[in-house]
């Protein structure tokens, strides 16, 4: 077992950090507060191939995996610029298309995603949150098109992407009543598709939307993989989403601790730096330990996903990483704010504005409670309550 970061991983981490720190949290705040988008940062990362690290070289990508994408995602967040759309675009959409798409589909979409294009992901519905079996957005086959009707909610970044990978119901299992799901790539400007902004208390440039599909026509060749096999395919994309979700928490936590440690080294109240008081130092040290543990599990989860060796172990690790990173991240950000005293709430110190994002990560991309359910049943063999 070798825990030394490989030379190319270290170089990747360093290069991404340099690019992202050139923008920094002030840029992120400025874009958020003005209602702008972080296009300059996204494009800079995309043009250097950092968003497409996990896409095969044959389609213009870097030929790496989720391990490399996790490094990119964490370093960008650690620069104070957590980009949630990396999760849905590079982690889910690109992974699912690469794994299950036809050659034509890969040729059509992966080169764009290996560069600066985004593809967002739509699964959540008002009446089907964590229970994907209840998905009610229906796609009905009509000749060489599907006609899609229904509602999706909390769909991120629909205003920034030309296309979205959408989970639809193409049938019902008569025995269980469960939805038979399929994946369609739908244009975000398709006629009959309306969107409405959901105001949220997350200070980030990416916006969330409710989507209304009214008989939206989608060419049948936009189906990814086999009709009715969508759930299995989506599950394949969910591990990368959890892993990259964990990296956002890890990155923001590192950013917060870096800020707090610098502040605690410099700020003097009674003639000594406040960091010399254990009441200030220990919560930061404790958070540092928790964040490093979460990073370790995140790296393991990425490795297991990339090596495709043990699906159960990969699923467990991805869930544990996501859980640990969100909890450690909240503790770290909280400790960092506390170390700043009143300044912790000032916009200038760039911490409290990230609270909504960090708190979100306890809920999404999978809630803490669903992770605990999963670990209870899968890892501990306890009976399922739902």
């Amino acid at each position, binding site marked *: 077992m070798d825990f030394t970061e490989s*030379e190319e991983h270290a*170089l990747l981490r360093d*290069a991404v950090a*340099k690019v992202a720190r050139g923008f920094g949290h002030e840029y992120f705040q400025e874009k958020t507060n003005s209602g702008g988008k972080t296009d300059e940062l996204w494009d800079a990362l995309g043009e*250097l*191939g950092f968003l497409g690290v996990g896409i095969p070289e044959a389609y213009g990508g870097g030929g*790496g995996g989720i391990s490399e994408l996790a490094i990119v995602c964490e370093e960008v967040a650690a620069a104070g610029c957590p980009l949630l759309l990396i999760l849905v675009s590079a982690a889910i959409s690109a992974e699912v298309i690469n794994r299950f798409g036809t050659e034509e589909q890969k040729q059509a979409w992966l080169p764009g995603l290996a560069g600066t294009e985004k593809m967002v992901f739509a699964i959540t519905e008002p009446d089907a949150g964590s229970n994907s079996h209840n998905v009610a957005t229906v796609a009905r086959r009509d000749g060489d098109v599907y006609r899609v009707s229904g509602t999706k909610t909390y769909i991120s970044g629909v205003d920034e992407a030309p296309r979205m990978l959408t989970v639809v119901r193409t049938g019902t299992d008569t025995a269980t009543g469960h939805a038979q799901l399929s994946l369609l790539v739908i244009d975000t400007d398709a006629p009959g598709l309306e969107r409405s902004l959901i105001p949220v208390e997350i200070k980030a440039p990416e916006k969330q939307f409710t989507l209304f599909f009214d008989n939206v026509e989608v060419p049948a060749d936009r189906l990814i993989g086999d009709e009715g096999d969508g759930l299995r395919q989506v599950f394949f994309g969910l591990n990368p989403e959890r892993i990259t979700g964990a990296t956002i928490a890890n990155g923001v936590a590192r950013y917060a601790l870096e800020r707090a440690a610098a502040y605690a080294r410099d700020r003097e109240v009674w003639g000594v730096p406040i960091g010399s008081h254990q009441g200030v130092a220990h919560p930061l040290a404790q958070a540092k330990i928790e964040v490093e543990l979460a990073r370790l599990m995140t790296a393991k989860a990425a490795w297991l996903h990339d090596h495709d060796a043990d699906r159960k172990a990969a699923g467990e690790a991805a869930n544990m990483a996501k859980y640990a990173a969100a909890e450690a991240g909240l503790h770290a950000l909280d400790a960092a704010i506390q170390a700043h005293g009143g300044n912790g709430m000032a916009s200038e110190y760039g911490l409290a504005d990230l609270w909504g994002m960090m708190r979100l990560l306890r809920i999404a991309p999978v809630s803490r409670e669903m992770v605990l359910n999963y670990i209870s049943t899968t890892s501990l063999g306890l009976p399922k309550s739902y």
Partner: protein
Amino acid sequence: MNVVVCVKQIPDPAVPGELDPQTHWLKREGKLILDDSDAYGVEMALQLATAAGGGDVTLVSMAPNGETSGLRTALAMGAANAILVSDESLKGSDALSTAKVLAAAIKRANPDLVITATEATDGYTGTVPEQVAALLGLPSITFAKKIETADGKVKVERQTEAGYDEVEAPLPAVVSVTAGVVEPRYPSFKGIMAAKSKPVDTLTVADLGLEGQVGAANARQEIISVTPAEERQAGEIIEDDGEGFQKIVAFLESKKVI
């Protein structure tokens, strides 16, 4: 056109440096990184090679413990290969020894142009580029803020206190570049992956035929003692009564800044 860039791998400047208490040499045991001031030279070399219609950019570096981390960064930017001189006997080398080693390594690459930074960020001697040029018997141009090559010549805008000089020399030549000569590129992921398999030729002092000429024993300088820099004094605080600007002007005049 083949270009050699001399690059130094230095301790991370973000971490406070330490001197060995006995020898007063800079401790260089941990991981070393590419000196930021050399990234400009690497970028310049890549651009000049492209403008000349092709050719290789070769890195030349002297570093302890076979260190290649900093070289990989420059290889990821696009340099084709590297020559690394690493040898226990180089410990304690002074600037002239370093120049001898670099000059001997540069000869092997037989370049059309040699680019260096004006000085390294850890040592700040700032004499190595001129020494290398002298040892190689090549023209030396320092403090370049713009470089062009054409018709077997290098044309340089050379930064001066008052502005810049336009100077020209026949190739091959040694040119030191200032930070800001060009904006260094970030390595792309493809560049990073390609860097892994680019050749790094590791040489010893014996390979270069320099035994007994370099290292601490042959250094012409010795660091006798080291004194910490004076602690910064607290500044002077002037209450502004509406005439505060005059005091600022008087202060700046006394320092001959204005």
